[in-house]
Every structure is written in structure tokens, then in C-alpha cells.
């Protein structure tokens, strides 16, 4: 059974293998990789980087992670969402979707 978790509006899905056509992402100079950018409050969702992680991105900007060690997921403002650890594995990081009846557009849930 596929494992998944919700860190605020970020939907983290454990996947068996990476999809084709991904682009590798260089994260060498960062302590954290932002997996859910906060458009409104600056409270980005992020994963603490370690040297064993490999990050990829698809054409839609969805991030994928391959990690051989557990990874810590947190927010800049820790009191908004608890920090949690995901086990070693391969993951995709999506954003929950919401329909806006005023503009009649489906958008990512904004934080």
C-alpha cells in the first residue's frame, strides 16, 4: 500500500520509482530544500538536506526526492505545523488543490 502524508497543504507521496523525463536539481548550497513555497505568509515547507539526497523536478515544477536516510520535514514557523520525519525512500511533493468559486480556477492551496 502506498504511503503518504500531509504537511499542511503539501501532499507527500511515497512512490515506487521516479517518473521519466525528470530534471536533476542542484541543492548543494542550501541547508533546506523548499517543498512548499508559501506565497502569503513566508512559512515555507521544507526538507532538511543531507548529502545522500537526490532531488529532481518535472516539467510542472513538482519535486521528487530519493533519500537513503530518514528526512525531516518542517516549516519555517515551527508552531504552524509540527516537524516530522519521513523514512528513507522515493517521494513526490505535491500541493493540495482548492477550487476558487470567485475566479472559477483550481489552484494550489495557498499558505
Amino acid at each position, binding site marked *: 500500500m502506498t504511503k503518504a502524508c500531509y504537511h499542511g497543504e503539501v501532499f507527500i507521496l511515497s512512490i515506487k520509482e521516479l517518473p521519466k523525463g525528470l530534471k536533476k536539481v542542484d541543492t548543494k548550497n542550501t541547508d533546506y530544500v523548499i517543498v512548499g513555497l508559501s506565497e502569503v505568509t513566508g512559512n515555507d515547507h521544507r526538507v532538511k538536506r543531507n548529502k545522500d539526497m537526490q532531488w529532481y523536478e518535472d516539467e510542472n515544477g513538482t519535486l521528487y526526492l530519493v533519500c537513503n536516510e530518514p528526512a525531516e520535514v518542517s516549516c519555517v*514557523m515551527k508552531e504552524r505545523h509540527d516537524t516530522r520525519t519521513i523514512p528513507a525512500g522515493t517521494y513526490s511533493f505535491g500541493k493540495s488543490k482548492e477550487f476558487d468559486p470567485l475566479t472559477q480556477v483550481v489552484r494550489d492551496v*495557498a499558505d
Partner: protein
Amino acid sequence: MITEIKYEQEQLLPVVVDKWVASISEEASLSDVKKSVKNIYELMNEKTPRTVLVDSPLQGILLAYLLRDDDDDNGKNIDSTTDKCLEETINEILEQIKDSDLQQKILENIGNKGNKALKRIYDESYFTLWDVFWGGYYEFGKLIGVQFDEEKYNLYINYVKNIHFIISYKGLCIVSQKPINISWKEVPVELNTTICKENIPKNRILHNESGPAVEYKDGFKIYCLDNILVPKYLVMTPTNKLDVNFFKKEKGADIKALFLKKYGVENLVEEYGKEIDNYKNHKNTRNYEWYKKSQYTLYDMSSLFKEMNSGRYDYLPYIRMKNQTIPGISHLECTYQDNLDVSSKWEKPLTHQPKNILEALQVRNNGIHPEDIDIMFIV
């Protein structure tokens, strides 16, 4: 090498933290600000710039904006224009933007054209406020005997103490004075630590339910609830005068949640919602315990948009969920599926609007049915 911290040293932790928190609103003198700017520029091998001390970060940003050439839409050349601008020009502009009413008039007239330049100036500015934590951290280190390069230590500590907000150009450095008032709320702190409970410093967030959380001398104000930047309207409007149109138009999930907290999510769903389904109807599901923790409930909120409906939404499903981290906070998100052609091709097809919490979550998950996953956590 220091391998442990004694109890008497631990007792200094809250003292140092409280001191640095208080320093955020202690006025800095112009001479101290100029000295800190001089030291920092020297460290970067740059000549000492003119230093202007303004009353607020907004005043500083507007000063930089108004000093630029008229045709500099992107703000790329502000470095060179500020290098040659006259003292009189700076003083004239400061007169134009000396209080928040004048600032608002200028902001209203800027329009889209100037926004790029404003954004660039903002991106190139820096709130030294973030370094106040490090100032306290290093000072505590010094108190317990950590050895520092004295010159660099003093330079850093004085910089953090005196410089609240800075926009630095080659010939001109704009520094904002600190706020005159800051409003904090204490929140519990959970630490995995050996430090004795009585010595753990207070954890504070910006919060004020009856006024600005941060206020500057020129009247510039910042409103925050639970550390979230919010519009003035949400703080200053009495609960019984709040307009649900605010909730309808607001895009930020946290701000909407704060609106719901003040308005009362029970009031909103009672007034406008019709309950369709809730977690209690799904006791035999794989993830029932998670649905129960989040208290997922599905409402039809179509009457909330009745006046602009034009018959489009005779059913508008919203899922309500409890925030698992912050007590008293609920979120209400619209799970209307606007393209049933797309959802009918999902692995578990959805050919109608969500009629239960599982289908609503499937829409929220962009097609992945919640019973097809093992939920590890929801926070």
C-alpha cells in the same frame, strides 16, 4: 573545550533571550548606527557611505524608490543614482514621506509600473531582526566562556543591536529605526533538551488582537495574529461586523483560518452550510483514525455564493478539517471538481461532485483516493 553547561550558566539563558527581545524596540542612536554601517562597509572593503536613519522600513523603501531615475522601472540603477544624489534631495523626499498617510498616498499612485522597482528594493533590503537570535546565541556563548575573535564579535553584536532594517548601496545606506511598540504572545515551547524546565526561555510570537503587532514612529503598522501577517481589517473589525466576503476573496489558507477562528467556523457553516458527510460515517475505512483526528466534515456551501452564483453552483462542496498542530484552528477548503472529464479518467474515476469526505479528499489530492494510501501523518 566546553563539554557541559552548569545549572548557573543555564539560568542565564532566559535572561539573555529576554534582553535581546527587549532590544528589538530600544531606539538606536544615529551615531551608533553610522558606526556600525562604517564597520560593515570597511569589512567589505567599501568606502563609508552616507547613512540615513529613517523612521520605518516602509519609509526606507519609499526613499530608495523615489531617489531612482524616473525611467528606471526595474530599480536596477538605484545604486548609481543614490551615489550622486544630493543631501537636499534626500531631505525633500523624507519630508514627502514623513508619516504613514503620506506614504499611503504615494503607494496608491505607484501602480503596476513601479511595482517591479519596489519589489527589487524590497528583495535587496534586509531585516537584521532575524539575526537578533544569533546575537543572543553568541552573547550566551561568550558568557559561558566560548572564545571569540573580539573584533569580529563586537562588530557583529553592535551591528545586530543597532541595525534593524537596512538597504545598502555603494554611496548611500538607508537604515530604519526600530519599532516603538511590539506585541508578543507567549506560546508553549517543546524542546528535546536536557536543560531544566525553569531555565528554558519563553517562546514568543507576534500577536495582537486589538491593534498593530508592530508599530513604528511614523505610524507604519504591521498587523499579526499568531505570527501570521494579516490585513488590518481582520484585527480591527469587531467579530459581529466581520463580512464573509473577506473569507470568499482571501486566498491565503492561514489568513482564512484566522478569519474562521474569529468569525467562528460553526457560525459560518451554520449560516451558509449544509452538512453532507462527516468522518463518523467512515468507521470501517483504512484511515478512519486520521479522518477522526482531522474531524473531516463535508458541507454544501453554495448559499455562501448565492448572489454571484447565476445558477452555476447549485452544489459547492467544502471540506472542513481541524488543524492538527494549532488548537482552535480549522480550515475550510472548496473541493468542487471543475473538470469532470479529467476526474473521470483518474485511476479511481470521479464522475460527479464529491458527495462524501473521501471523494472530497480525492479532489484535494489531485486524483489519489485517500483509501488507496496508508496515511503516515497529518500535521
